[in-house]
C-alpha cells in the first residue's frame, strides 16, 4: 500500500478559558440533543486549484461531515442550513448571537479555508450562543486531500469541548467484508473511516480471513487467515502490506489481540482438541503459555494497564467470562448470570467489560463492571456478537447476522453501533456485508 503522508499542524487561534454555559452530559441517554448550527466553511477567494478537488465546495462538504458526525452521536441536533441567518465569512468573524438564538441554536460552528501552494489551511470557531462567547478556535494546515480528516478532527475538538470527553471521529474501523451465498462466503479484510468513507480492501478474498484487530498505533493488524488451509494468526503492516505468521505453532492459532503496549499478541492455540491462551512477544519472539486447562479458553482481552486478562472458558461446563492476572495466576470467574457469556472486551477506560450473552436463543451485547457486577444488556437480537470499543469508551461497534431461509436466502451480516447508555443504536454504512469490526484509536493523537 502507498504510504500515506499525513501532517497536520494545529495551533490555537486564541485560548479561551471561559467556563462554558452549554455542556452535554453523555453519561445518560440524551433525549434532548443540543441544537447546533454548523455553518458552511467560507472558502477564501484567493484559493487555488488542487488536483481534482472541487475547492469551491470544500467548505460545504466539511460542514456536512461535521453535521453527520454530530448527528450520529445522538447528543447533538444539527439544524437545517436553510434557516441560517448569516453569511459564513461574516458569522466567522463575529456572529450576531441574537439572530442565531432565534432559530433555537445553542452552539454555532463557523470556519474558513484557503487552498494555496498545495496546502489546505482551515480554521474554525465554536461559539456559545447563549453566553455570546467564543468557546474554542483552532487552525490546521495539511495537504488538501486530507480534507475529510480535517472535518473529523474539527468534530473531535468540538465534541471534546462540549462533552468533556475525548472524541472518536478521526478513527477507522477494520472489519471483514463478506459477499456470496451463505455457505460459500468470500471474506476480505477491509478498512474504512468511522463514517463509512474511504473503504479499502487489504486482502483479495482467496482465503478465509477472520477477526482483525488494530495495534495501539493503528499501523498493524492481527487477524486469523486460512492461508494454505492452515488457520493461523497473522500480523499485517497496513502501510507496506507485509504479512507474517505469528509464532511457529503446530496447530490452529486464533482469537488474536494486541497487548495495550502493542508489544505482544495474545491468542488461543488449539492442540489435541484443547484451546489455551498464549502470548508472543513480537520483538523477542518469546512465547508464553498463560492458561493450562482442559477446557476451551479463548477470546482473551487485556485490561488497558496490561495487568489483567479477561477471557471466556467453558471450564464450568458452558462458556463464562473469567479474569486473571496477565501471568495467568489468580483466575476468577466473573459471570454467574443465566446464559452463556463470551467475547469479553475491556473498555479503554478500564472500568467496564463488554460481552456477548446468549440466553434462550437470543443474543445480547452488554457491559458489566470488571468484577462482573452491574450487568447491563444494551441490545437483543437473533444473532449479534463481538463488541469493540470506541477509543473514548462510550460506544460499542459489533456485528449482526439475520435469520436465513431454507436455502440461506435473507441472510445478511452488518455492522452496528450502540452507546453504552443503551441508546442510539445505529447501522453502520458499509459497501458490502460486514462482520468482526474493530475500532482504531484516535489517529491524530
Amino acid at each position, binding site marked *: 500500500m502507498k504510504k500515506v503522508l499525513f501532517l497536520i499542524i494545529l495551533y490555537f487561534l486564541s485560548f479561551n478559558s471561559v467556563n462554558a454555559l452549554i455542556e452535554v452530559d453523555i453519561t445518560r441517554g440524551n433525549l434532548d440533543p443540543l441544537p447546533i448550527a454548523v455553518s458552511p466553511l467560507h472558502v477564501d477567494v484567493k484559493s487555488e486549484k488542487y488536483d481534482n478537488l472541487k475547492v469551491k465546495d470544500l467548505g460545504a462538504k466539511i460542514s456536512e461531515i461535521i453535521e453527520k458526525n454530530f448527528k450520529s452521536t445522538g447528543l447533538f441536533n444539527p439544524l437545517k442550513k436553510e434557516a441560517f441567518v448569516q453569511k459564513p465569512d461574516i458569522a466567522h468573524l463575529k456572529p450576531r448571537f441574537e439572530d442565531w438564538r432565534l432559530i433555537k441554536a445553542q452552539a454555532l460552528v463557523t470556519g474558513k479555508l484557503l487552498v494555496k501552494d498545495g496546502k489546505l489551511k482551515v480554521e474554525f470557531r465554536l461559539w456559545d450562543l447563549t453566553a455570546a462567547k467564543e468557546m474554542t478556535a483552532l487552525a490546521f494546515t495539511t495537504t488538501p486531500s486530507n480534507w475529510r480528516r480535517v472535518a473529523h478532527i474539527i468534530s473531535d475538538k468540538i465534541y471534546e469541548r462540549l462533552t468533556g470527553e475525548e472524541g472518536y471521529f478521526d478513527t477507522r474501523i477494520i472489519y471483514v467484508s463478506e459477499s456470496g451465498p451463505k455457505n460459500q462466503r468470500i471474506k476480505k479484510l477491509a478498512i474504512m473511516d468511522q463514517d463509512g468513507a474511504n473503504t479499502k480492501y487489504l486482502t483479495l478474498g482467496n482465503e478465509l480471513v477472520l477477526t482483525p484487530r488494530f495495534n495501539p498505533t493503528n499501523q498493524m493488524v492481527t487477524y486469523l487467515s486460512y492461508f494454505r*488451509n492452515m488457520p493461523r494468526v497473522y500480523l499485517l503492516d497496513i502501510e507496506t502490506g507485509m504479512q507474517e505468521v505469528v509464532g511457529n505453532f503446530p496447530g490452529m492459532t486464533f482469537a488474536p489481540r494486541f497487548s495495550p503496549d502493542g508489544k505482544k499478541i495474545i491468542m488461543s492455540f*488449539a492442540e489435541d*482438541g484443547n484451546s489455551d491462551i498464549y502470548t508472543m512477544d513480537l520483538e523477542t519472539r518469546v512465547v508464553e503459555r498463560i492458561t493450562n486447562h482442559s477446557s476451551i479458553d479463548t477470546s482473551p482481552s487485556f485490561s488497558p494497564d496490561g495487568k489483567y486478562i479477561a477471557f471466556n472458558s467453558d471450564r464450568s461446563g458452558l*462458556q463464562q467470562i473469567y479474569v486473571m492476572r496477565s501471568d495467568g495466576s489468580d483466575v476468577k470467574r466473573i459471570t454467574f448470570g443465566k446464559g452463556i457469556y*463470551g467475547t469479553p472486551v475491556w473498555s479503554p477506560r478500564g472500568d467496564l467489560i463488554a460481552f456477548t450473552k446468549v440466553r434462550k436463543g437470543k443474543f445480547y451485547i452488554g457491559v458489566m463492571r470488571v468484577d462482573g457486577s452491574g450487568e447491563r444488556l444494551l441490545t437483543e437480537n437473533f444473532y449479534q456478537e463481538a463488541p469493540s470499543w470506541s477509543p473514548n469508551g462510550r460506544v460499542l461497534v459489533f456485528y449482526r447476522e439475520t435469520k436465513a431461509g431454507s436455502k440461506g436466502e435473507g441472510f445478511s451480516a452488518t455492522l452496528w453501533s450502540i452507546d453504552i447508555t443503551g441508546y442510539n443504536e445505529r447501522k453502520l454504512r458499509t459497501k458490502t456485508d460486514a462482520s468482526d469490526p474493530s475500532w482504531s484509536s484516535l489517529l491524530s493523537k
Partner: protein
Amino acid sequence: MTLNTNLKNIFLVVFTTLILSACSTAKKTGDLDGDVYTGKETVKYLASGVPDRVFFATNKSSLTTASRATLRKQAKFLRKNKKLNVTIEGHADERGTREYNLALGERRANAAKDYLMTYGISGKRISTISYGKEKPVNPASSPLAWSQNRRSVTVKVN
C-alpha cells in the same frame, strides 16, 4: 504419550457411554435424537457403507453411539486402505460466538480423530482442521440445519 492419550480416550469413551445411557430417554423427533442429527440427507460416503461424518449435540464434542459406530466403520476402512490419509474437519452451528466455535470445531475434529486412533489408526494419518461456523453444509437458520452443521467430516487427502 500415545499410550497415555489412548488410555485417556478409552476413559472418555466409557464416560461418554455412561452419559449417553443416562440421556437415552431424550425424545426422538424425525431426524433428531435430542438435538443430534441422525438422518442421512447431508451424508457422503468414503466407500460403500462408510459414512464420512458424525454429528454432535449443541456445544458438545462427545460422540454418540451412532457416531461411534460410524467411526468404527471409518477405522475399518482406513485399516484396509493403509496408504490413505485423511483430514477431519470440525464444524459448529451458527448459534455461538465465532471464536468459541473455532475451538469447538477443533475439539469435535479431535474427538473423532482420537476415536479412530483407539481403533488402531495412526495419528500420523489423520490431520484435523476446524472451520468453526464458517462452512455450514445447510445454510438455513433452523434447528434441523444447525444439527446438520454440528459435525466432523472425514475427508480423503490422497
